[in-house]
């Protein structure tokens, strides 16, 4: 399984992404488990709402953080996310 750069990316409906006040962190919740996210991973996942493909996502994040050259990091993380079933494309 690997990321298709053309297709839109959506957060998996089988998981839940939420801010945890007690931990001051975003986390992914799923049956009997939890993954704590660092800030950049959380920012990427929040944009996976089914309206953007890889390039659009990179453009939006680069704009948000007023920077460039994020594409490799973002696509690397998204591959991991896809492998873990946190995101999907269809």
């Amino acid at each position, binding site marked *: 399984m690997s990321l298709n750069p053309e297709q839109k990316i959506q957060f998996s*409906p089988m998981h839940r992404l939420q801010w945890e006040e*007690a931990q001051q962190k975003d986390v992914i*919740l*799923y*049956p*009997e488990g939890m993954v704590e996210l660092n800030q950049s991973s959380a920012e990427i996942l929040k944009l996976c709402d089914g309206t953007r493909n890889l390039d659009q996502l990179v453009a939006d994040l680069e704009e948000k953080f007023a920077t460039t050259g994020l594409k490799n990091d973002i696509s690397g993380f998204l591959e991991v996310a896809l492998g873990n079933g946190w995101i999907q494309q269809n």
Partner: protein
Amino acid sequence: MAGSNKTNITPPRWLLAELTYKCPLQCPYCSNPLDYAKHSHEISTEDWKRVLSEARKMGAVQLGFSGGEPLTRQDLPELVQHARELGYYSNLITSGYGLTEAKIIELKEAGLDHIQVSIQASTQDLNDHIAGTESFHSKQEVARLVKKHGYPMVLCVVIHRENIHQMADILAMAEKLGADYLELANTQYYGWAHTNRDLLMPTQEQYQEAEKIAQDFKEKVAGKMKIYYVVPDFHEDRPKACMNGWGTTFLTIAPDGVALPCHSARELPGLDCPNVNDHSISDIWHESKAFNFFRGTEWMQEPCKSCDEKDKDFGGCRCQAYLLTGDMYKTDPVCSKSPDKHIITEAIESARQSALTGNEKPLIFRNSKNSKAY
């Protein structure tokens, strides 16, 4: 008692709400206490809501509704809704027995995140025998409905000598039902399983064969189905890391409101487990004798005390040490460094003899009649 270092207490992450000891099934490996019939009082809906609110405020985020059979509590949808409003991820851990489509929809609307259905075997005869109740077809139906209504579907199968030969069929069944997760839980021998151990424990060869089948299947379904394999600790060299560390992560509340550092802890002597009707959750977690008892490593004896792995497994399971050696401070006998390791070897041999001679006493099923004998 272990003098704990109170500044290092982490907040609970996991709340296990054992809503009731009532259950329509009679599984002979149930982890509920043998004398559960003595603890038939159940705390109220309001009590549960308060427990949920307080634990959430401290940082608990995963919530398991279990039992017994949690569906026997009529206020389950109300509790689920309360949990959702608080931001819990809620897991319903059920036998599936009596779960109708209308209830599945009602719980979804209330905000339930996930349903775990247990199935006892891959065939009707064996499932119904182990469950002590005719339930195979309704469980399969429930699994389909859970999927249909968009829940992640987790199948749980407890593995023991009566069903371990069905491993390949169990895996095929999970695939056919479209399980997103499959929990293959090798029986842990406390509670009722301890009593029935000679009849339930597979031989080393059976474990090895079953594990190989499960591992090969895991690769085959990678990306489609996740498999959790709960290891048979009697056959390992190191014990399991008890509760991720006593009083670090898990908080269990029993049906009568007794707060437990682990679901079996009420069997340990002298812990004086506190009740949520007498104390706040925060007091229970931070101050109570029970939750501080085995916190940290101060309480340990040798060989754990000077062992360089003590931060990895915390000396193993306290309930197992107590059940097998009579001393809850001892090294879990599963550990190869334990002077009591022979107890494990003997238990394995005794179960093996029982398997070979076929000269077996009957299983003791978990029901209130049998419970009253304890």
